[in-house]
């Protein structure tokens, strides 16, 4: 099993995709950081000002922005699966390991590791931005208290689990473009609406991103009032449940299908 996971990681790191996705992830996180830092302490029209750069709330909000790039990890997961069908390498993969359940398990494990790696990269970028910003603003840098460790863990877990979502979706849909477009529409349109509009948050808190937000919950008033979120433990449970569902979907759709 260890050999299979290593083989899957080797597949990932011997093509260009991973570092392109990593660059995009860091770019996206960087833009988010720029906005959060730039507008800190300013008041949007008709709303109270956001926390200033010297405050703990500011640091919480910046660390929490690390989940914004989860979609790119999901795309990475999708391509890990659909790429095998697109280039027909799935044939060689299954000839090498005819017990397909093992292949799926190895892919999920490799995806999980890649997700953690991307999460760590995002957190490092955030650290590089937030620490000097807080110091310059005359605040006190908090890393081990004030809910920051929980937020960091939340970012890592979200990144890792979204890779699993991608692999599961890729196994189900198989068509790379359809799967990627579906994932983008889901994350940027459907989930965004469900989690942002107060009337829909009763549903939205059970979506993957709603559950992820509960892990990194910082009670920042966005102008829409306080978000309706699950408690952190329930959010974690919902995310793991999604990951399990996607893992089962990935296995069931892959194990029996004829490879022609």
């Amino acid at each position: 099993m260890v050999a299979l996971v290593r083989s899957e990681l080797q597949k990932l790191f011997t093509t260009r995709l991973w570092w392109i996705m990593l660059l995009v992830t860091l770019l996206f996180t960087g833009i988010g950081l720029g906005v959060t830092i730039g507008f800190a302490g300013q008041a949007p029209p008709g709303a109270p000002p956001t926390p200033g750069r010297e405050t703990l709330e500011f640091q919480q909000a910046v660390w929490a922005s690390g989940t914004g790039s989860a979609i790119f990890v999901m795309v990475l997961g999708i391509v890990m699966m659909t790429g095998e069908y697109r280039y027909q390498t799935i044939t060689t993969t299954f000839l090498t390991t005819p017990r397909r359940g093992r292949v799926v398990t190895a892919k999920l494990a490799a995806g999980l590791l890649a997700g953690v790696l991307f999460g760590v990269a995002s957190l490092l970028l955030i650290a590089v931005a937030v620490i000097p910003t807080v110091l310059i603003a005359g605040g006190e840098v908090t890393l081990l208290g004030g809910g920051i460790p929980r937020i960091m863990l939340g970012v890592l877990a979200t990144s890792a689990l979204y890779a699993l979502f991608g692999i599961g979706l890729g196994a189900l849909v198989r068509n790379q473009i359809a799967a990627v477009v579906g994932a983008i529409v889901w994350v940027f349109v459907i989930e965004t609406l469900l989690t942002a509009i107060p009337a829909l948050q009763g549903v939205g808190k059970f979506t993957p991103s709603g559950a992820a937000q509960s892990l990194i919950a910082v009670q920042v008033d966005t102008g829409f009032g306080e978000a309706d979120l699950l408690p952190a433990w329930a959010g974690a449970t919902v995310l793991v449940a999604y990951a399990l569902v996607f893992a089962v979907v990935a296995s069931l759709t892959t194990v029996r299908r004829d490879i022609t």
Partner: protein
Amino acid sequence: MTAIEIRNLAKSFGPVKAVDDVSFSVDAGTITGYLGPNGAGKTTTLRCLLGLVTADRGTALVDGRPYPALEHPLTEVGAVLEATSFHPGRTARDHLRVICTAAGLPAARADEALAQVGLAEAARKRVGEFSLGMRQRLALGTATLGRPRVLILDEPANGLDPAGIEWLRGFLRNLAHDQGVAVLVSSHVLAEVQQTVDNVVIIARGRLVHQGSLAELTGNGERPVRVHAAEADRLVPALEAEGARVERAGDGVLRFYGVDAETVGRAVLEERVLVTELVRERSDLQEIFMQLTRET
């Protein structure tokens, strides 16, 4: 020793019977040609044998076991299925190394296999830059990575130039006749494998139409007597009385099946027909192949 055994294999895709009750076997140290027109069911048979497609009925065994039950499949069976099953952005060497890792083979095997198929120079090139012939070589390198005792190839000559086909023949003969590997190679062109194979299995419309040695196949073919004569038609009643079947091949040329040249010669003498050509035709493997696989 039986290396591959297929018994009563059947597989349908919707209403199409792709493989219909096919049985044959391949012995160690021999090359068997699996022949049939495109769409005859060759690829489906091979994919059932390799556990990629689940058969509706029947069994397909390698060394007495179904492929998915093999503990280290790459060290027992190598397969070449499509020329395109590579990621274009991965180098040839990385492609093989990924498989080595998954199969528990030492990474050094990747370089050895590349050298064996003549791709050592191109090891660090991305497969996207490869020609079709290079891809076929890489596919062969992939198949022989685990030094298997059984080799299964689906249309391996597709896209190879004449020199490449000659190289492939030598490669397969060496594996089978010198190293005792059982080779099953499919093709839709008999001439392509005619010089290489020991045995032939012919399939048409999903059903087996012939199994045996190449020599048996030639023996089965009818060798007609061809007569070229302006008044050849005058020979027909006498020869039909002898049990001959007649095929009109055009201007004054007739083929008589089921009679020998002497019988035809006697008819010529008795009917006093001026003959410009009278010959027993050579058996043409391609013609036999066409006869066997013709749409009925």
